[in-house]
């Protein structure tokens, strides 16, 4: 079954971020799976899915060892650009940082690296805009808001469960 990368936008101020992937056979199926897997807890306001096969991907190390060779093959189209810019501990991989227009993935990435030079990229993805399917805006409320009411799965709801008053210093808490 095809693999789809999932991008989640947590709120209006956050970019779409790569959170993982789902297996699915078509875009609608992929969106449902993405919602069910990645929005079990708050928060999300929107999701994108893209077939993993449509992604042109390079790590910084790959770029160093085999420089890009942009060509004019293909038809000019919009590409969305994603970049990982930090080694900080995180549960997300790439951030969506903008878009570019190019005839193919390799050229799109070459342009993106010039265009988005505010930070060095540790890894890059460019994806044709037409390969990405977004959750519909008019159903966003129905898809994403209810997760906020599922408080029983938030560890904070359980307070400090203990018979002992001292001794434990939250050693197992690892919320990010």
């Amino acid at each position, binding site marked *: 079954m095809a693999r789809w990368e999932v991008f989640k936008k947590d709120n209006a101020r956050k970019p779409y971020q790569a959170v993982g992937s789902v*297996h699915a056979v078509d875009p609608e199926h992929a969106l*449902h*799976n993405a919602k069910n897997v990645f929005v079990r807890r708050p928060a999300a306001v929107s999701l994108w899915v893209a077939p993993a096969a449509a992604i042109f991907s390079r790590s910084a190390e790959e770029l160093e060892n085999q420089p890009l060779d942009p060509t004019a093959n293909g038809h000019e189209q919009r590409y969305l650009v994603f970049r990982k810019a930090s080694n900080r501990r995180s549960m997300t991989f790439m951030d969506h940082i903008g878009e570019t227009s190019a005839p193919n993935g390799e050229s799109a990435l070459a342009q993106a690296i010039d265009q988005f030079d505010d930070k060095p990229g540790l890894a890059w993805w460019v994806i044709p805009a037409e390969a990405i399917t977004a959750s519909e805006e008019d159903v966003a*409320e129905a*898809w994403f*808001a*209810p997760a906020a009411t*599922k408080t029983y799965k938030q560890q904070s709801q359980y307070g400090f469960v203990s018979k002992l008053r001292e001794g434990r210093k939250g050693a197992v808490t690892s919320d990010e």
Partner: protein
Amino acid sequence: MNNALKNALLNRLIGMADDELILSHRNAEWTGHAPLLEEDIALANLAQDELGHATVLLGLVEELNGKTPDQMAYFRDAAEFRNVQFLELPKGDWAFTMLRQYLFDAYETILYNRLLTSSYQPLADVVAKFRGEEIYHLRHSHMWVERLGLGTDESLGRLQAALDQMWPLTAQLFQVSEADNLLSEEGVFPLAADMADEWQEIVLPHLANCSLHVPTHATMLLAGRETHTHFLNDLLTDMQQVARWDPSAEW
């Protein structure tokens, strides 16, 4: 609220809560056994949403009869449950589960829509909170019926078999009792029979688009919500065994 009206409302609230509770139980049985890992997760979402709705509705019941949601769920016998029969049937195969979900989601979407304007404000308020989840559920089961109906011969065959079995039972959703007229006159609860047309307008075209044939000569189930199959008994034996093992305990 006079007594007759209150009892009629209680009956309907218990029916709604039991529908959600029993369906949730069946859906949760898929956790760990679904055809795709992503669907283990999806079914557990459904089960949680439905269990959440059941709990809130039983909260409204408690305001009227003083029994806690746990007492209602764990210390009533089958004869006291008011869910419709097709929800208590075993989970069956994936086609049965998804079709049942679809037919019921469509019904609930209509019911909740109407209850948004119920003159019984507490009910209108809680239903407003359920709406988002119900819209999503219907989208999900709608998607599945389409994929199974238009998938392989086998998936279509299984889906059709599920429809043949379930269709006559869906009539129970639209059964009306004497007391329901009272509720409808007071604007508390819509007359179930009035929702049948709207329900058919939603489900019939989709079933047809998915290559399914609605049975034409089926004998529809006209029994009231107080009648059940032995499957409910089995389900409750599972569900209530620990709670009844030590009724004095807090869990």
